[in-house]
């Protein structure tokens, strides 16, 4: 399953589970499914929730991506440090699974 960064980002606002997707536009026309999961089609379903700005959502998406990238980087550098200590690949895999 590919990670859905937009939805993961949205859940960091309003305590999570605060949004859904509009299925019809203001004129009653059906929004194609392929176009619904975009910022402009968010609907609030939780009392008291407020709409984050698109910039805030995009910043959160970038933050999640950066964190993921950093995690991959940390894994790679950590593995290299283990190698530098003299461990071979089999030993490293036995220890950390990769």
């Amino acid at each position, binding site marked *: *399953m590919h*990670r*859905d960064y937009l939805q993961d980002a*949205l859940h960091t606002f309003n305590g999570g*589970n605060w949004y859904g*997707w509009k299925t019809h536009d203001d004129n009653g026309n059906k929004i*194609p*499914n392929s176009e619904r*999961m975009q910022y402009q089609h968010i609907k609030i*379903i939780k009392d008291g929730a407020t709409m984050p700005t698109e910039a805030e959502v995009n910043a959160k998406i970038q933050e999640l991506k950066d964190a993921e990238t950093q995690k991959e980087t940390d894994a790679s550098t950590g593995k290299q440090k283990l190698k530098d200590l003299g461990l071979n690949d089999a030993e490293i895999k036995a220890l950390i699974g990769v």
Partner: protein
Amino acid sequence: MPFIGNQPALSYTSFAVQHFTTSATTSYTLDYSVANENEIRLVINNVVQQPGSSYAYTASGTTLTLSAATSATDTMYAVFLGKAVQTVTPASGSVTNAMIVDGTIAESKLASGVNTITMAEQWRLSSVTVTSTNTFLTTNLEKADTSDAGSIGTGMSESSGVFSFPSTGIYLITGTGAFYQNGSVTHQFVGLEIYVTTDNSSYNRRASSYGAILGTAEEANTTCMYIFDVTDISNDKVKFHVRQQTAGNLNVAGATNRQLTGFTFVRLGDT
């Protein structure tokens, strides 16, 4: 019996007979239209009458005219010689598929126990839901409504996660749960469960399926099924439950453009 020519289409026939309630009249109405009086054999008081305008009776269309009036004490009947009524009964096992007109067999003609699928529909969780404990799915549920989504018949209705059935019957309910890691939380088990009620109040777990999310970026997909005998659409309901090890948040995958976490309802037949 040998014969020359085409095989008659109407192999088995019987003659129609009409018994009259007699009165003091010369005019009667026949059940079937005839070309002339020779197409019927008229019997009065057990005596065969001679047809013809110079004799006992004439007939044309459905009009029978006697040369002399009957009385109420007479008995009279006519045998339609020219109107053999078709009572063809095909021999057992002789009706082939080609003999049946396309699209004419109604479900009501099928034997009891022979069922057709009259309802099929899919629903789904339309956006990701984050759970931290066991919970029923109650929001962001929608019918599969992509442009090519198919369904049969009148479908389910849903309110706050409670699904109601359109009619009584035996239903196959399939629930699929798609879960993925939230942050770095691991779960020894995650799963989707089917709960049903038969009194619109007390729900019982009837199907479960579980997986695990034990490492980074792991996901779990589970499917459970239940065949539910819906005998009362007011009281027989179903809802779907996420069960998880309460170690922290869990992402229940959902989308409005495809099935991730979703439910399929198929009415298999009558209850």
